[in-house]
């Protein structure tokens, strides 16, 4: 059996364009979910470190539960529950049921999952900042917003970057799970292409190469970012 490369052509008889669009969607969801996760993570980490007892316990429940339940189950649960909740809210406000954008739902799902892991990474990184530095800033009368921006965030960054980089790689791979709820990202697009042409092997290999390229390119960027964040620090 020869390989029919024309199946990968970018224009319609070939499925290359569909795959690339799937890749773009995957990257959009990964990027959006990662950013949302980071936002949750910053809030969660500060809540866990400096929040009141109730905040701390609730956050502990959030991170423990998310980390104990398989991503697949979470994604299915949050995907359906999230869209259902929005629809019910819309109904109770007197609107018609809204058709939720799959992209937004996907970003939301990945963000919630990533948030739990981000919280733990950032909490560890903030704890690694010598307390004297924060104390010194307080002694100079810095308000907490400025303290966060000028001292805590930059000082914790070198400690956080390996964990956060790892989370980015996970985010790109977790987007594939959205295929299970029928969302057309790269993996689902590949399966559709395979189903239409019966050439599953070729398409899954092509998609694998695309995912691998994302990982390898990310690794190079991470290396540069890490070097920059660690400048002036001792080599390890």
């Amino acid at each position, binding site marked *: *059996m020869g390989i029919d490369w024309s199946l990968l052509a970018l224009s319609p008889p070939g499925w290359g364009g569909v795959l690339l669009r799937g890749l773009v969607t995957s990257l959009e969801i990964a990027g959006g979910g990662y950013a949302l996760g980071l936002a949750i993570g910053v809030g969660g980490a500060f809540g866990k*470190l400096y929040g009141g*007892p*109730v905040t701390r*316990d*609730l956050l502990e429940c959030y991170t423990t*539960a998310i980390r*104990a*339940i*398989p*991503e*697949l*189950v*979470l994604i*299915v*649960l949050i995907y*359906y*529950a999230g869209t*259902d909740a929005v629809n019910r809210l819309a109904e109770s406000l007197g609107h018609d049921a809204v058709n939720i954008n799959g992209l937004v739902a996907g970003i939301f799902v990945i963000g919630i999952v990533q948030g739990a*892991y981000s919280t*733990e*990474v950032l*909490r*560890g*990184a*903030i*704890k*690694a*900042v*010598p*307390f004297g530095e924060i104390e010194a800033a307080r002694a100079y009368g810095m308000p907490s917003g400025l303290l966060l921006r000028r001292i805590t965030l930059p000082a914790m960054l070198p*400690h956080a970057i*390996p*964990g956060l980089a*790892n*989370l980015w*790689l*996970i985010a790109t*791979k*977790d*987007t*594939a*799970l959205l295929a*299970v709820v029928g969302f057309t990202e790269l*993996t689902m697009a*590949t*399966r559709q292409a*395979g189903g239409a042409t*019966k050439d*599953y*092997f070729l*398409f*899954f*290999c092509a*998609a*694998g190469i695309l*995912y*691998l390229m994302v*990982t*390898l390119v990310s690794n190079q960027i991470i290396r540069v970012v890490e070097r920059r964040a660690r400048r002036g620090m001792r080599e390890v």
Partner: protein
Amino acid sequence: MTRTEPLETEPGLAELARPATRGRSWWQPHRIVLLVVSVALVMLAAATMRWDWLVEYWPQILIGVWRSVWLLVLSIVLGFLMAVPLGLAQVAGPRILALPARGFCTLIRGTPLLLQLWLLYFGVGSLFPTIPAIRQSFLWDYLRQAWPYALFTLTISFAGYEGEVMRGAFAGVPHGELEAGRAYGMSPFKLLRRIWLPRAFFRALPTLGGEIIMQLKSTPLAATITVVDVYGVIAQVRQDTYLVYAPLLFLAGIYMALTGILVLLVRVVESRVPIRGV
């Protein structure tokens, strides 16, 4: 989907500077309130959702859990057996072994598990029937079913991630210990068996514990290729009953319980490690 747990840093001064909560008991007033609230939520879910399907599907759910556990255990054991040579090849092997081992780990870690699974099941699986030799061999009985693909994919996935962990663990064993073994005239194999492998294993143990839990969380993917594990059973329940939340919440509960049991097991094993100060 395997994640590396964030490194635990030493308790910072920031913690010590806070009013000490360490001495106080776990039962603080707010915790009791939170517990009451959560019990109330569970009761609400029990009262308002439909659970009658549990009676009918109970035996299937148990079989599903058993299948998930079985997939987990087998893939971990086989994957770890593959990971040791993978790690060793990268640390000590000649280039001709080290490069493929490194390439394998990068490939596995760089692509989603779901894609690997579908590639093998739909892609490779669809190639097998076209080869007459395979159709006639005894392998065909297995290759027609879904679970060998799930087991194989989960195994190589675990091997890929653990190969990387073992690489670090092998490289981290102090050089002097290996030198001492050599000075005693140990053969390379005996050195590996007596010193290098056990020391590397104990070093890798905390990471391995986390990775095993990650592996548990990867097993439900098998349901996407028709293996009826516990996720598959619940998916069936959802199809039969049109219930959205109750089966999924129950499934989440099952996985939380399984994770809890695994965490305890890992802790027991770790506490038995006969070394100090690693």
